């Protein structure tokens, strides 16, 4: 290598000097466009590589930005999905609050109409199935709740208190198999006893017992409490006659669909005053 360099030393020196002089001259001489030749040469030689680099750079940049955008879009999508879930949850909460407000308004309206002292309570638990016969409410003896207190809702009679705790009470719904409510048909004043769900019940209607075979009872008649059971105030809406099968003896079975919306119920009123002294106003009915 050293020999080769030495042998070509003069050529190398020639090349180096020529290049150096060309650069020096090009630095001073200008082209027609008043650009130094060296600059013109550099531009001419370098420009294609610069274009190549620029286009490659732009391509890479675009690919990178697409990648970043894609990642951003994915993150944005995840963020928005989370936000949608949050908003859906908030919306559900608002709807729930709105429904609760509507129910409470109904309760307040009922309380305003009733000349009774009532306690507002919430359903906190039910025994098993939605149509179970007993539920637990959020008020107990510490709140002034006593045994056999009637439990009502704006849509109708719900049941009565059968067990007490300090801060909770168990309520037997009128749906319960062992329940019995003294009722009468509002139009004809025919009295009877409304029992809980039985084997003969059809689609949730309840049998009204001890109705004379000749009594004037029709489908669609409103059934209210009679007050004779000494538990429920007289005149509270219980339901509507749904079926009147033909009589087979001295009495006939009448079936009543409860008006209370048990499957939608969350707040109820517990009636404090003994029912025997009450006569429910017409407006409550």
């Amino acid at each position, binding site marked *: 290598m050293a020999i080769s360099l030495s042998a070509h030393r003069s050529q190398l020196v020639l090349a180096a000097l020529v290049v150096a002089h060309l650069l020096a*001259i090009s630095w001073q001489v200008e082209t027609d466009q008043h650009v130094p*030749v060296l600059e013109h040469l550099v531009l001419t030689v370098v420009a294609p590589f610069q274009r190549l680099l620029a286009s490659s750079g732009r391509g890479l940049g675009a690919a990178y930005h697409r990648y970043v955008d894609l990642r951003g879009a994915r993150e944005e999508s995840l963020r928005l999905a989370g936000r949608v879930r949050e908003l859906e949850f908030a919306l559900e909460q608002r709807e729930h609050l709105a429904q609760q407000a509507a129910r409470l308004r109904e309760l307040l309206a009922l309380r305003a109409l009733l000349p009774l002292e009532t306690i507002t309570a919430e359903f906190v638990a039910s025994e098993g199935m939605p149509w179970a016969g007993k539920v637990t409410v959020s008020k107990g003896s510490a709140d002034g709740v006593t045994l056999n207190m009637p439990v009502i809702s704006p849509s109708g009679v719900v049941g009565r208190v059968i067990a007490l705790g300090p801060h909770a009470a168990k309520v037997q719904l009128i749906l319960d198999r062992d329940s019995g409510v003294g009722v009468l048909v509002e139009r004809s004043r025919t009295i009877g006893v409304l029992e809980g769900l039985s084997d003969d019940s059809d689609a949730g209607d309840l049998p009204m017992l001890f109705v004379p075979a000749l009594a004037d009872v029709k489908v669609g008649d409103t059934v209210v409490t009679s007050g004779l059971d000494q538990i429920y105030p007289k005149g509270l809406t219980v339901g509507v006659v749904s079926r009147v099968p033909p009589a087979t003896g001295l009495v006939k079975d009448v079936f009543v669909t409860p008006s209370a919306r048990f499957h939608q119920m969350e707040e109820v009123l517990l009636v404090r005053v003994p029912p025997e002294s009450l006569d429910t106003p017409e407006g409550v009915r």
Partner: protein
Amino acid sequence: MSVLRAGALILAALLFQSALSLLLPAHAALLDPFLIITVYVCLMRGETAGMLMGAAAAWAQDLAFGGPVLGLLGLARVLLAYAVGHVGHRFLISSLPARLATLFLAALLDVWLLGRFAAVFEVPLRSFSVLTQLERGAVNAIVGAGVFQLIEWRLRREPLL
């Protein structure tokens, strides 16, 4: 050849050219002492030293006497030195006629190369007529060969380079 001696040669050429332009301004362009020392170094030391000397001398000449574009003369001298050194390396150029011929042709080649490069870079340059070129070649050949003889005579008494 040391840098110092090369510098001394260039300085001598510079002074001589300056003196000539003062004493004989009309004929100063006919004699080029920088060309003569370049050819001398090429013949004595080979093309590499000649190219370096040619480049340095040409730059000094351009800087001192205002060449149109710095480096243009240097480029021509580098190529000239390479050519002369190359020829001098292969042929024995020690006789007076050979030196005269070499200097004469070198002077012609020098003007031709300068003209070509000036044309390539579109640098306006004073043109020489053929007669002037021949005249310049002859003057440089005669003066240069005389200087060479003088130097050699001097070297026989005390080596200069």
